[in-house]
């Protein structure tokens, strides 16, 4: 027996999108499989690693922990929405500082970092590290990611 699906209407990176999904489908799966935006990654699937970070109605959230029913009508930003014609300053800073190695955590880092910059929550290294505490990276040791975030926060490359 299958439960009825809901017609989910969302604004995704500024565009109106719709998807027919089960109400308890994870937002992460809706983003990747129904909306076809595979920049958002699944790491742990339990809210520990931040690879699935997205900005939902202005809040930083883990898309793996949110059921589709709770995002009806919401505005969603994913890593695909960060760049305009050019890369965003944070994306440029990641390139400049070597903030990505294997790249799997990078979409989550970029989304979380973008949120922190927009909240004006990046004042120093301690603040940057605390802000990114929910995003795990197994390659870089975080130094270059934090450098990139601080640089973007100070408006330098």
């Amino acid at each position: 027996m299958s439960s009825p699906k809901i017609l989910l209407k969302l604004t995704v990176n500024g565009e109106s999108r719709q998807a027919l999904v089960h109400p308890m489908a994870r937002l992460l799966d809706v983003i990747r499989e129904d909306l076809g935006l595979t920049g958002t990654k699944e790491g742990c699937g339990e809210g520990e690693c931040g690879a699935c970070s997205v900005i939902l109605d202005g809040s930083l959230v883990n898309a793996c922990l949110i059921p589709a029913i709770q995002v009806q009508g919401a505005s969603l930003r994913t890593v695909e929405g960060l760049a305009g014609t050019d890369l965003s300053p944070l994306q440029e800073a990641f390139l400049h500082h070597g903030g990505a190695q294997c790249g799997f955590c990078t979409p989550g880092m970029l989304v979380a970092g973008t949120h922190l910059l927009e909240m004006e929550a990046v004042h120093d290294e301690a603040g940057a590290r605390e802000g990114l505490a929910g995003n795990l990276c197994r390659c870089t040791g975080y130094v270059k990611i934090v450098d990139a975030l601080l640089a973007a926060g100070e408006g330098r490359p």
Partner: protein
Amino acid sequence: MRGQPSLCDVLTPRSLDEALSLRAACPEARPLAGGTDLMVPFAAGRLPDRLFLNLWGLEELRGITVSEDEVTLGALTLFREVAAHPLLQREFPNLVRSAKVTGALAIQSRGSLGGNIANGSPAADTPPSLLAYGADLELSSLRGARWVPYAGFHTGYKCSLLASDELITRIRLSRSREGGFHYFRKVGTRQAQAIAKVSLAAWGRVAGGRLQELRLALGSVAPMPIRATGTEGILLGQPVTELPFEAAHQALQADISPIDDLRSSARFRRRVAGNLLLEMLRGLGPA
């Protein structure tokens, strides 16, 4: 993901009244707030529930109200909102600190005080602070609303006073903490994200050189968040210059019942709980 969304349905009430009607009519529907706890076992296929009661959109459960004597928090008050609230920062620093060590920012944007309480994890971060501040809970149903002391709400591992037709709707804290002391410390593998191996929250008041009031609460050392009432009894009324450290330490060991699990051992938890108590008590003595 091994969970099965295709087998699950969700009831989404538009008002608290409708939520309480649905709760009474469908007690099998599992209340779902921000999802930060429930979605983990759900996605892993470890949650037996097939029907959920979605509380996320209920405005009646949101908001922090301050009166002269009390602060009342809607059950859906988010950890992020607790952490950012100036009055809570001033008067209830343990609650703010425990909200700030609950997961990290993305968890704090979805996790709620009421959800944290209802989930009933013995390792939850905010319950010891709520116990130390003597919080009361409002439990609501179609039959009406009742206030109960949070101490005593948890009756065992994931068991509570909440009836099958009730929802936790508000949390109330009494103000007048002037001259009191606050202590909170969570011990885990790291500051963010880690689940507590042991946590201890305390609030008390010293007057006339004696410890006149004390509420001491711990997480991760019993089947549920607990008050250490035996330890409180040993310490209450004692002069702060001659606190009975050894007797209090022994009483604490009798108050707690930690277990070995994947995060820590009972032995480590007993030792750390004792150390936290002593650290807190040393902070009370003459400088």
